[in-house]
């Protein structure tokens, strides 16, 4: 624990007529409201005790005695001596520092460093949760002691807020800092202004925690208007938080407290700031900054306001550089080689003249080209994946056939958009998904039902009952057809089982299963052959916001209100991996095309990329100013696109861990993002009833990620949203909830009509 001693100049403020004793107390003194309760053994992180500046002498006396006793207990005899000596003088002079220098006994065996006789008080600081605060001299306000007696987890965390400085002076400190930052050079000002918001929030929360309601309110009113506009929502929540009890139930804010807000500042600006704050009168702020902020220093040019703005906005500040340094295998897994038999149906178009068809089997050439392992691709066996069944092989063959008929998209040839509007949903449509071959569409509703429709003329059939199944001929060629029960054919099927609105839906790649997650905290697996529910996966105890099957099937992920995302396998009733680290709900979860990584977007406005193998967070992307609602990986696995409530679509380079593009245009939350099949076009759908098409090739072309950028994370985003926008299409007052490119690059959209 590094102890930081700082001398605080005293005497600048004249004490009030009443006698006051300022005593630096050692940490670990159990908080006690002014009463003598000395001798109580120090407990785990506890707020420091501040002597109540009561009018009565007896209280002061008692406090002194308590401190003396404690010092004795901790075997700090010298300090005790000095304190005893000084205590006699205290009542005379108004501005003596209580306890002299010897007061700083450090818990945990640190040697106190008495600077005896010095009129200045010592400030000792222990890193970690136990903060030792010293009372600045001459605080006129009555000091209320924070009680740190209670030990439940929440309070341990909350107690990290020990008293730092005089609450009444907080506005003074803050204004002082403001003045200083206004006075620095322009180039530094933008960077140093980053400090305002976290400082403001932390100071405010501390005032609230220490139950200085009036001061907190005054502080808030005075300074909340100065903050950046994109923090407005946070500030609004803060404005409703006026009492200590309010903080207890709010996990997000608690996490905000305990995690350090990360700021990235250039070395020059940092030196400037440090020098200023280490001057005597600014010590309090310096302490607070050290306590709650993590300043990631980089060498280089200070960043401009624009650069900073694009990267900031999240609840935890920006990402430290080390957080984005791990190697990520973003390449795709090799496709298995499949023999593609030429069959008759495929040749219809070509062989109209009736030429004899060649029935030579064609080898699938997509996989065999690159015999060498792509260095950026994970090993085939990095994570266990299910084997390829015959039906999967058939599916792949179909896929390849369709791929040959795929329309090549580009700025000159935009996709046609076919939009499916859900009528009479009464604003209850909460989730939509299409199968990969676009034959089925499923909708999740707020009345807790899931409905599956067939998009093609082929109806949905259930499997026959057991009795009938025993009667069919199992050796016939079309046994797969015969197991279906014609009597149950219908256009759509309803799936009942959830007990809360269904927020996420996902088809399995082999079209046998459907997953749905709901507010009732379960994820259900439905069979699309019997149209019944097979399993309910319980693990989240809070609403689950999103779920998705892995591109290879078998695994699926879910993310919910409890701020973790879980990886499951269909045959395990408990999750295999837990991805924990977000500060607020996980609102969107997506698999990488190679199934080795999972991206989660959260209400804390960050996106994290997790490694499935060991659960580590390998990337943190900040920059959105609102909760993230959709993510999309590019088909080549290199890039990630994200959309949030701020209406912007941000593009990220996974390999380098940087933001490479920003697509502005939408005016409301972006709920759907999808790349076209070959990655040329990015389609985005939003609550503002439009679908926009962006030129992805061009957006990713202009990256210049040289070493400097990668090292420092400086990005200069080109303002080219207008050029990248290829088209904007309005729906008829239907917010777009889902987008899907068919195998032939036709764009399908889905939404509920909302007049």
């Amino acid at each position: 624990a590094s102890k930081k001693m700082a001398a605080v100049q005293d005497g600048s403020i004249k004490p009030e007529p009443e006698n006051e004793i300022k005593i630096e107390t050692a940490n670990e003194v159990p908080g006690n409201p002014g009463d003598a309760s000395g001798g109580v053994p120090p407990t785990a992180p506890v707020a420091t005790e501040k002597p109540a500046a009561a009018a009565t002498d007896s209280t002061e006396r008692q406090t002194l005695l308590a401190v003396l006793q404690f010092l004795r207990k901790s075997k700090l005899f010298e300090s005790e001596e000095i304190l005893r000596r000084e205590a006699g003088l205290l009542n005379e002079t108004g501005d003596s520092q209580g306890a002299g220098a010897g007061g700083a006994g450090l818990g945990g065996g640190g040697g106190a460093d008495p600077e005896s006789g010095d009129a200045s008080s010592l400030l000792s600081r222990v890193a970690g949760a136990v903060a030792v605060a010293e009372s600045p001299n001459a605080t006129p306000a009555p000091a209320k002691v924070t009680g740190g007696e209670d030990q439940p987890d929440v309070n341990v965390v909350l107690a990290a807020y020990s008293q730092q400085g005089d609450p009444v002076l907080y506005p003074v400190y803050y204004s002082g800092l403001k003045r200083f930052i206004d006075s620095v050079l322009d180039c530094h000002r933008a960077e140093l202004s980053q400090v305002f918001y976290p400082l403001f929030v932390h100071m405010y929360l501390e005032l609230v925690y220490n139950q200085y309601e009036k001061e907190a309110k005054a502080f808030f009113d005075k300074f909340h208007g100065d903050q950046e506009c994109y923090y407005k929502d946070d500030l609004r929540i803060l404005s409703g938080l006026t009492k200590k009890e309010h903080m207890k139930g709010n996990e997000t804010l608690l996490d905000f407290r305990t995690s350090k807000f990360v700021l990235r500042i250039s070395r020059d600006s940092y030196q400037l700031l440090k020098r200023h704050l280490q001057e005597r009168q600014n010590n309090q702020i310096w302490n607070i900054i050290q306590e709650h902020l993590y300043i990631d220093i980089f060498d280089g040019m200070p960043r401009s306001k624009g650069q900073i703005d694009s990267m900031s906005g999240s609840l935890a500040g920006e990402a430290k550089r080390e957080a984005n340094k791990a190697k990520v295998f973003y390449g795709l897994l090799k496709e298995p080689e499949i023999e593609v038999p030429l069959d008759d149906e495929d040749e219809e178009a070509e062989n109209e003249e009736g030429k004899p068809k060649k029935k030579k089997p064609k080898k699938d050439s997509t996989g065999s080209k690159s015999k060498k392992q792509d260095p950026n691709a994970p090993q085939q066996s990095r994570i266990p994946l299910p084997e390829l069944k015959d039906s999967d092989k058939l599916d792949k063959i179909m896929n390849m056939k369709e791929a040959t008929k795929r329309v090549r998209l580009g700025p000159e040839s935009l996709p046609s958009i076919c939009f499916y509007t859900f009528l009479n949903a009464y604003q209850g449509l909460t989730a939509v998904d299409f199968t990969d071959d676009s034959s089925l569409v499923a909708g999740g509703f707020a009345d807790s039902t899931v409905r599956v429709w067939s998009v093609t003329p082929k109806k949905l059939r259930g499997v026959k009952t057991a009795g009938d199944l025993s009667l069919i001929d199992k050796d016939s060629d079309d046994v797969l057809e015969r197991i279906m029960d014609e009597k149950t054919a219908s256009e759509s099927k309803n799936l009942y089982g959830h007990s809360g609105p269904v927020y996420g839906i996902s088809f399995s790649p082999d079209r046998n299963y459907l997953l749905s997650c709901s507010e009732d905290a379960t994820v259900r697996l439905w069979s699309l052959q019997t149209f019944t529910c097979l399993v309910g996966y319980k693990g989240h105890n809070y609403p689950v916001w999103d779920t998705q099957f892995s591109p290879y099937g078998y695994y699926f992920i879910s993310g919910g209100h409890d701020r973790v995302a879980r990886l499951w396998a269909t045959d395990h009733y408990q999750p295999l991996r837990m991805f924990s680290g977000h500060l607020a709900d996980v609102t969107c979860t997506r698999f990488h095309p190679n199934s080795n990584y999972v991206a989660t977007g959260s209400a804390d406005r960050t996106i994290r990329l997790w490694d499935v193998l060991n659960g580590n967070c390998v990337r943190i992307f900040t920059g959105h100013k609102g909760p993230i609602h959709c993510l999309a990986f590019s088909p080549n696995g290199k890039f990630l696109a994200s959309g949030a409530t701020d209406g912007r679509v941000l593009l990220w380079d996974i390999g380098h861990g940087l933001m490479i593009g920003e697509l502005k245009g939408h005016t409301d939350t972006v709920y759907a993002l999808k790349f076209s099949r070959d990655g040329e076009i990015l389609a985005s759908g939003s609550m503002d009833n439009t679908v926009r098409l962006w030129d992805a090739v061009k957006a990713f072309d202009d990256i210049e990620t040289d070493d400097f950028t990668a090292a420092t994370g400086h990005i200069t985003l080109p303002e080219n949203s207008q050029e990248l926008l290829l088209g904007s299409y309005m729906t008829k007052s239907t917010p777009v909830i889902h987008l899907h490119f068919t195998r032939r690059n036709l764009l399908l959209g889905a939404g509920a009509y909302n007049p």
Partner: protein
Amino acid sequence: MAAPKVVPKDAQVMTQILKDMGITEYEPRVINQMLEFTYRYVTTIIEDAKIYSTHAKKSNIDADDVRLAIQCRMDQSFTSPPPRDFLLEVARQKNQTPLPLIKPYTGPRLPPDRYCLTAPNYRLKSLQKKVSSSAGRISVPRLSVGAMSSRPSTPTLGTPVSQSVTLTTKVGTPVSLSGQRFTVQIPSSQSSTVKSAMPSTPTVQNVLIKPSLIGSKNILITTSMVSSQSSANESNALKRKHEDEDDYDTL
């Protein structure tokens, strides 16, 4: 025509709250929902506080009681997700175990049966076509709980063989087969269990059996009369997890 509506003060407060939180678009129902919630919540808290204060033998409710009431309710209904360090710890442990290998060719990959919802929620008991002793005697299907009047005649604990028992039920005439529910004696291991309190109402294991399965016209109704043991029976019987079928009989 009604007089111009005056919005009650509480509703005005709600509107103001929504405005303060920056919510501009909302359905008018939202105000009502908020009001309802507020009233119910506050009433619950105050009632609880009253209970606590009487328990502490105080004459009036004071702030401590209210605080306690709020805290208890918070822990009960408004729980919040676990704290971050706890989650991190759990995640660390869980992420240490390597991913399990996938066995090939195992058919649909589902968790063990007891974690699935695929079990039948009815039970077919084997029909003991005991014709001999009670040939010709057609018993009437049992009635539901209302038929408490039935004589708990045969105690038959432990006899696996079906016994026919005629019930004196309210309905005298045998009714048609279709749609009837028949009970079949459970050839299960009973006994052991509890002769605990014999519930007054003989609970019957009713199972819907397709008429086609019942060949003979003689329908033997046997009571798993052993009502007391029926519940025990059920648990002993087939291990499938299912809920007890409801005890009613429709005639």
